[in-house]
Every structure is written in C-alpha cells, then in structure tokens.
C-alpha cells in the first residue's frame, strides 16, 4: 500500500503541470491583456515597454517557458496590477485569512453536522430530529451568499452583534462568526444528512444487537460501536468539503471584504493579471489534490478492510 501512496504523491506533479499548461493557455486566450483598456493605464509606448518587460510580446509558449523557469525557482512572477509587488508578496499577505476561514469553517461544518446527525439519529422522530432535519433542509437550500445577506441584515445591521465586513484573524472571532456560518451551513447540513443516514444504517447491524445483548450500556453502544462505524463515510466527505471550503470561499471573501486569496483571484481574472491567476490556480489545485490524498490515507487507517493497490 505504501507503493500506492508513493505513486499517488508522485502523480501530483504531472497533474499540476497539466493544469499549469491548460490555465496558461486559457488565460492567454482571454481577450485583452493586463495593460490594455481601462482608465489610468499607461500610454501606447509605455504599454509596449511594460509588455516587453514582462515578455508579453513574445509567443505564448516562450512566455510559458519563462514562467516555468521562475516557478521551479520559487518565483511566482510579478504582480502586473501593482508595480513593484510580486505574486509571492500577495500570497504571503493573503493566505492567512483564506486558510483561517477555510479551516474554521470546516471545523464548524464537521462539528455541527456530525452532532446534529447523531442527535437526529439517536432520537429519531423526536423534536430534536425534526429540528435538525429542518436545519439541514434549510441550510442545504440556501446559497451561501443569500445566507450571508440575511445574517448581515439581522446580526450586523439590526442587532449590531457582529461587524458586517472585515477580518480580524483567529483572535478576531467577532469578524469570523457571520462568514463562517454563511459558508459552512450548507456543508454542515450535508454532513448532518449523511451522518444521520449512516447512523441509522449502522444501528441495524448485527454487531450492535450483539453489543446490546451482552449488556453494554446504551451510551457505550452509541459512542463506541455506532458512532465510530457511522463516521467512516462522513470522513470521506471531509476531504472534498475542506478542499471546497478552502478554494470556494471567494464569494464569501468578496461579500465580507475578507482580504484572502479568493478575492485576489477574482480581481486577477478581471484584470488579466496572468501570474496571479496562475499562482492561485496552481495553489488551489494543490490543496484539492492534497486534501483528497490525505483523506484516502486516513480512510485506510480507520477502516482496515480498505486496501489500495
């Protein structure tokens, strides 16, 4: 199995390489360059000089060569939108809010989702079950930006509990509440649904009846036998969900004015900021691949029946 994972890890390199080629080709196919059109941009001559400086006057494949040469040396290129800053600088400044938001939101989604799922399954057809299924239904049917709007209206504008925009890092929890709840409620609802279904399935297994028959207390049966087994399918979901939250938070970053990578990406695309588009795409792709690999490994650890070849 070690061989399998070594192959998987090595496979990351060609995947990212292909993604770099596709992204590079695509963004150069977008009409208009970084120094064209728009107010406040430089003159014809200045534009040509800038284009020459960044090799934008050369054929695409030559530009790609320059880019890759920089990349393997750890240089992600200049930020075309603001003179003098590099993409490395931008990522250095922006990674923190995105990672904080992604990690905290994943934790929120998992904790809320799993607890609701377990509660609903163990108290089936009770008020708690209906409330949590209701939450899961509403959470799953509201796009995160709509939820964001509603939460801001209620808790920032009307009651002024939390600030409507901005980011204060891990210690500025007040800034975190609304974006995390907006972003995390849909995955939380999804996790709750899957947990509940999985719990109900495990509860019917023979080994649960055996556990009860040998006189174990109900608490132990639930926590040690049911929950542990029921969470295996949930675990596989966490990989894609964490990857999705880390890479898909841009709309929430945009909405709450969080200075993260997602917001930088949207601005980069709209401004044809080639090096920044490349860097963020590759970074996000890396996160997605890594998240899935990690979960596959974890899966093999928690369920010894799983063998990869």
């Amino acid at each position, binding site marked *: 199995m070690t061989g399998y994972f070594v192959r998987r890890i090595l*496979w990351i390199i*060609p*995947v*990212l390489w*292909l*993604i770099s080629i*596709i*992204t590079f080709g*695509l*963004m150069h*196919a*977008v*009409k*208009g360059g970084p120094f064209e059109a728009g107010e406040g941009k430089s003159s014809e001559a200045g534009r040509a000089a800038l284009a020459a400086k960044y090799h934008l006057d050369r054929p695409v494949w030559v530009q790609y060569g320059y880019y890759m040469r920089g990349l393997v040396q750890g240089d992600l290129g200049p930020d075309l939108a603001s003179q003098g800053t590099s993409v490395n600088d931008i990522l250095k400044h922006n990674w923190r809010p995105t990672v904080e938001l992604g990690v905290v939101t994943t934790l929120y989604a998992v904790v809320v989702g799993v607890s609701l799922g377990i509660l609903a399954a163990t108290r089936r*057809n009770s008020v708690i079950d209906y409330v949590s299924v209701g939450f899961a*239904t*509403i959470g*799953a*049917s*509201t*796009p995160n*930006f*709509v939820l964001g*709007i509603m939460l801001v*209206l209620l808790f920032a*504008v009307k009651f002024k509990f939390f600030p409507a925009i901005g980011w204060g890092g891990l210690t500025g929890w007040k800034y975190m509440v609304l974006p995390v709840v907006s972003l995390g409620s849909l995955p939380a609802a999804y996790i709750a649904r899957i947990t509940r279904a999985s719990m*109900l399935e495990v*509860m*019917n297994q023979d080994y649960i009846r055996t556990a009860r028959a040998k006189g174990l207390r109900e608490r132990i049966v639930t926590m040690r036998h049911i929950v542990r087994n029921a969470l295996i399918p949930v675990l596989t979901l966490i990989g894609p969900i964490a990857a999705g939250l880390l*890479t*898909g938070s*841009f*709309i929430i970053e*945009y909405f709450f004015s969080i200075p993260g990578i*997602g917001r930088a*990406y*949207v601005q980069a*695309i*709209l401004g044809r900021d080639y090096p920044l*588009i490349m860097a*963020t*795409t590759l970074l*996000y*792709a890396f996160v*997605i*691949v890594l998240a*899935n690999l990690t979960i596959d490994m974890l899966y093999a650890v928690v369920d010894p029946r799983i063998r990869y070849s």
Partner: protein
Amino acid sequence: MTQSRVEAGVAPLPGVPALSDFAKPARSLWGDALHRLMGNRLAIVGLVIIAVVALAAVFAPLISPHPYQQVFSGHAIADPSLSHPFGTNLSSQDTMARVIYGARNSLGVGVLVQFIILIIALLVGGAAALGGKWADSLLMRLTDVVYAFPDLLFVILLQQVLSGTALANYMGGLFVVFFAIGLVGWVNLARLIRGQMLLLKVTDYVIAAEALGATRSRIVIRHMLPNTLSPVIVALTFGVPSAIFTEATLSFIGIGIRPPLADWGNMIYDGYGPILATPWPIFFPALALAITFLSFQFLGDGLRDALDPRTR
C-alpha cells in the same frame, strides 16, 4: 440487506409495499420504481413544484403580469401590491415578472448543464470502462486533472475566455456560462459511469449475452446502458440544483447573464443594492431559488430510494 423494515426499527413509510402487496402480479423494474416513487410524498411534492416552475418557465410570456424588462417609472423598489404582487426592483421592473422569466434562465441552465455533463461523462466513462486498459488509464488520469481544478474559479476563467468569442452573445451570455459549468462538472458522473460499467461487465447476464453471441454494441445498448441509468438519473437530478447555484453565484458577482435579462442570481445581486430600504427584491428570487433547490433534493432522494431499494 434482507431485514424487513419493521425488524430494522424503521417506521413503515406510506407506499412501501406491505406483505399483502406481494400477492399482486409482478411489475416491471421501472413500474416498480415508479410505484415506489409515487409512494414518497416528499418526492411527489418536489416533482409537482418542479413541474410548476418548468411550466412557468415555458409559458412565461402567457402568465407573467408584465414583460420582464418593462420599466414602471416612478415605481422603484415598490412594496408588493395588486399591480406588482412581488413589488418592483431598483430599476422599477416588476419582480414577479422577473422571477417567472428568471425561471427560464435559471432552470434552463440547470437542465442544459446536465445534458453537457451527461454527454461528456458517458463518452469518458464509457470509453474508460470499455476501451481497454490504456484508454482507461489515460481517461482516468484526465479526470484526475479536471477534478483538481478549482471548479468555480475555472468556470470564471473559462467564461472570460469564451466571452471573447462569437458565442458570447448567444442566449444573452448564458450559453457561455452553462457551457463552462458543464465542462468542469462531469468528473464525478464519469467516474460513476465507469465504475458501474466495470461492475456490469462481469455480471452473469452480460457474460451470458456474450456467450449467446450478442454483438458488443448490442450488449452495451441493451444490457449495460439501461443498468447504468438509475444512478445516472439520480446524479443528474442532484446536479440540476447545484448548477443553478453555481450560475446564481456567478451572476451574484456580476459575471453571467446580462441585464435586462433576468435570472434568480442576478436578481439577488440587483436586490442587494437597496437591501436596507426594502428586502422584497431579494426575498422573492431567493425564495424561488430555495424552493426549486429543495424540490430537486426531495425528488433526487425519492428517485434514489425508488431506483435502488438496496441503498435504503
């Protein structure tokens, strides 16, 4: 799983056959599934709502109280009233008309995206499963690459690329959006189809058909495709609302359908400006989005239970 529902401690659902039902003449596979679906109240509610939304979309010009782009000057952000049941937006257009016409674009995207996804996934998944070892490795590595793309961001990039082409103005900019969403959304379905077909390839009835001398295309069309259909239908049903969400998200950041055309996403975007003055312009499109989304969820759940009773 051979346990009965009662033994399993699951409350009997309406429409699940009681023991006495088994004395009735056997139904076909699809008839059986339909029967189970009809017994699922939530799924039927979902189906009815989807039908209503679809009819509203198709017959929008007939049922809409006003044309969607008509401006009622002096009536900006009006509250709901008799002449404007859902109120008006900041541009003084009738919100109800825009919600109805928006169903066209929102639901249209959701459904058309599934067509693109289905075609690509069938080709890739089918070729991977049936085309031999080399094709399989190659195509599955391709899906790995597409899977690793951050999809929403890739859709934005692709949308920007395509908007420079002749396709840009087709369907008010919407074609480019659904094409882009479809182009990145097929990975999971392709994997599902491949997995299903690999399983089917070694089933007794496919081997029997081979032994009887059935041609390869006949086996694929008569035996393998129909048996791949159930999980595919379920996946596509769940895919519709998620495509609608994606498109709404793009509209919300101002990429996507162009005004004066309406869809629920850009209506929410439009309503966000005057949100402190009135919630109505945002409320109705958001409600339409949520109800449609839920309906597809219910229908998808119902279809899954009906088509594959084993997963219950």
